[in-house]
């Protein structure tokens, strides 16, 4: 399901399936996208932040076009205990690899991988970041 911002319109609540993973996309070239994500975060139920939220920063290939400080995004990830992934959608290889990573995360969050829960996975990612 794709949306430009949250909250989702309430009219279709009863038709919506369970959400297993929320990926917030931030375009490094657009300050507006960061503000939009920050505003949308307020509408997310706290239980999602136990491993079912991730931030995806796009456009990182063009360092000279960045309007956002990467520090600010990393701090956002820390504040919401959720991983931050960086990618460049214009490069096919990275696009495919990122899609595979997200798919893997989704499988874990939906409970399809026995023995690994969303919470254990995200704390694994956080520990490796600190190293």
């Amino acid at each position, binding site marked *: 399901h794709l949306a430009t911002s949250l909250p989702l319109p309430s009219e279709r609540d009863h038709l919506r399936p369970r959400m297993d993973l929320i990926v917030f996309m931030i375009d490094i*070239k*657009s*300050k*507006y*996208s960061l*503000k939009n994500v920050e505003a949308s975060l307020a509408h997310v139920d706290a239980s999602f932040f136990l491993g079912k939220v991730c931030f995806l920063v796009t456009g990182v290939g063009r*360092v*000279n*076009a*960045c*309007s*956002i*400080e990467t*520090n*600010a995004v990393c701090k956002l990830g820390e504040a919401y205990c959720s991983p931050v992934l960086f990618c460049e959608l214009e490069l096919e290889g990275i696009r495919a690899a990122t899609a595979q990573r997200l798919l893997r995360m989704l499988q874990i969050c939906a409970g399809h991988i026995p023995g690994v829960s969303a919470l254990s996975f995200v704390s694994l990612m956080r520990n490796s970041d600190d190293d």
Partner: protein
Amino acid sequence: QENVDPQKTAFLLRKAWTLYSVTPLYRFHRARLRDYARLLSAFIAAEKQKGLAVEVGVELDIKVAVSSLADLRGSEQDQAAILVQLSLRSQASSRNSEDKLVWLGWFCSVYGDDLSENVPEDFTCLPLFLTHGAESYTSMVGSWFQKTFDCCFRRLAISPLNLSWMVAMWAGCTLDRATCAVELVFSMPHLSQPLDISYAIHPEDAKALWDTVQKTPGEITQEEVDVFMDCLYAHFHRHFKIHLSAAKLVKVSTAVASAHCDGIVKILHSQYLPGVLMLLTELAISQIQ
């Protein structure tokens, strides 16, 4: 460096300079500037012989002067700036005819300690290179320096993030007379035809806004720059319902200086010359490292 003689640096003002970052020069000797001028002159003449760099209107009977600008530096650790001037040799036989200056380029370092601290002895650090004049001359001078001193030139691009720092800093400068508006130019993305939006603000309003945002005089934080820019974006959105924060900031202009994302700056005020050069030196160094 408050002792910089404004007369000596007047030629730097009100010119559009194209910026490059330069890696440290190997075995560059300040005592040999005359030799270097001769060698560069010979190189340019050779290029003419080869028929390279031939462009309509570009003359190649060139006289080269290389000099040192002792006052143009930040700290004692900085190397003094080096100026390269290319002039057209006057054709007339009369003694009074002057050579016509066709190209200017200068290397400098203002508080470039981050780079010079970590570099071995044979290297001279002058990370910022500024040029004014035809690109064909820039490319010849650049090639000669690269061959002779084993260094590397790269165009210095300025990101929207850095441009917003510049506009916040420069809009907040105190000037005797604020002569021109603070202008920001944005390029709208994802359109089939290019569209630019120019946002001009009265300089006194911009300075008043910055003064309410800045907490410690002499210090600027990323948060303060963000608040300043957010106020400008919010004001624009209130009137025009357009989110400038989703567009790309491509150029900023103030009474102190103007800068374009392609790495072109114009410095308008001698009082703030060291400050602007310090910022540009920092950008050049981060591009090198």
